[in-house]
């Protein structure tokens, strides 16, 4: 088949309407033809839009609940934006004991706890929104930073390819210790932490902190980590990090 013949198959390929032999031949051609790859990408977007031509139909009420159950989602679990750690079995036992204690102290205590949790969540969300706004790019990429096993704290990096800016939002670190600071690092693509570029330092561990990147690189493939360093910061990171991008 000529290129013109194969190009005519792009629509059928996107629609999933090719016969197996035609599909096989078109796939092979697609791997080597940038023109057809571009055509397929365009037509796939059209395919997505075609779905909106179908008159609206509300999904059954139980579908969301079924989906949530399938992935182990509970209404209390709100992932990144709630900054809630996943609990292991020992932690669950402790949580159970804590729950009994809460019951003994009565509903008012429980309400206070929930109010605090809600306030913390609001702070984190406000920081995330502010960070995206500061970057001037609502489509900024988000990366999650987590501690090593047994560690505490969490972080979210938001980086903008469009503006070249980035910020780290960090929460729950225990404090760097006397004479020490936290320091942000950019690990180049390839993942060698010894080659990491040094970023800003900070001390505060209270509440949520937002650390601007300054000159730190933001290109795709760069990852980020936080270490504890001597006051004033370092040019080489002291490993292992207290927070790093989750694999």
């Amino acid at each position: 088949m000529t290129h013109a013949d194969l190009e005519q198959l792009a629509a059928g390929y996107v629609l999933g309407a090719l016969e197996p032999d035609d599909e096989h031949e078109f796939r092979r051609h697609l791997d080597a033809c940038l023109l057809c790859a571009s055509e397929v990408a365009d037509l796939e977007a059209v395919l997505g839009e075609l779905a909106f031509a179908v008159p609206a139909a509300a999904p059954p009420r139980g579908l969301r609940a079924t989906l949530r159950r399938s992935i182990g989602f509970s209404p209390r679990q709100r992932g990144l934006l709630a900054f809630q750690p996943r609990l292991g079995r020992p932690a669950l036992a402790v949580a159970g004991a804590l729950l009994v204690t809460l019951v003994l102290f009565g509903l008012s205590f429980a309400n206070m706890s929930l109010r605090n949790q809600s306030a913390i969540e609001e702070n984190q969300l406000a920081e995330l929104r502010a960070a995206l706004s500061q970057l001037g790019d609502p489509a900024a990429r988000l990366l999650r930073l987590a501690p090593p096993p047994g560690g505490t704290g969490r972080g979210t990096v938001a980086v903008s390819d469009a503006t070249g800016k980035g910020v780290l939002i960090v929460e729950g670190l225990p404090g760097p210790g006397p004479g020490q600071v936290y320091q942000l690092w950019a690990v180049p693509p390839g993942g060698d932490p010894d080659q990491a570029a040094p970023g800003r330092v900070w001390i505060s561990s209270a509440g949520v902190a937002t650390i601007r990147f300054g000159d730190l690189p933001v290109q795709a493939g760069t990852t980020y980590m936080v270490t504890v360093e001597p006051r004033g910061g370092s040019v080489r990171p002291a490993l292992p990090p207290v927070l790093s991008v989750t694999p």
Partner: protein
Amino acid sequence: VRLVREPSSPRPARRTTTSSGEGATARVRAARAYRALQDGQLVALVAERDAGALDALYDRYGAPMFALARRILSDDTLAATLVKDVFLALWASAGRFDATRGTVGTYLLASTQHRAAEAVRERMDRRAPDRDAAGFEVDPRTYLEPDLRQPADRDLDRAQRAARIRAALDDLPESQRHLLGLAYFGGYTQREVAALVGEPLPAVQTGMAAAMRGLRDAIMRRERARPRNSTSR
């Protein structure tokens, strides 16, 4: 101004609030925060096993996915199962999602169409392996007619996209729209379509290609004419 379906407001605060009331308020706040994120950000969070982000994508695409699957399969239960499976596939593979090859919305809706078309093919093969044009039970031109049992779409973004694609479909020649309907909503392969409409296969291939390109060009024309303050994901 963007009109989206807001979750019900929390009840006015009482002197002593209940724990469930606090939890509901926090849930509403979290849902609003996710809603502020774009699709690409949500899928990045899904890759991090963030169930709330998947929930937010369900809010965005669950209804059009279900509507599409229901139209193709003509079965609410099968359609709901299919939509769940597509989301579970995203949950399992979001880390490998390549945003440079298309948006997550396109991925979800295209996956829904492909799976539903595949299911229809299997069902038809079981029911009538030797079917011919007489086995064609549903006129695909009726697929786009409003279903009066369903409420009108109250989401402005979805309503605008629906109006745009319907107008683009209206611009197509009737014959091209017919070919597209058979493949997209009927799940027929190009060879089956050729047999159904009594045209040679190359003519069907050319017609479908022209239809899809015609839609693409019409969408782009309307996108360029869209007011600047309109948002898109």
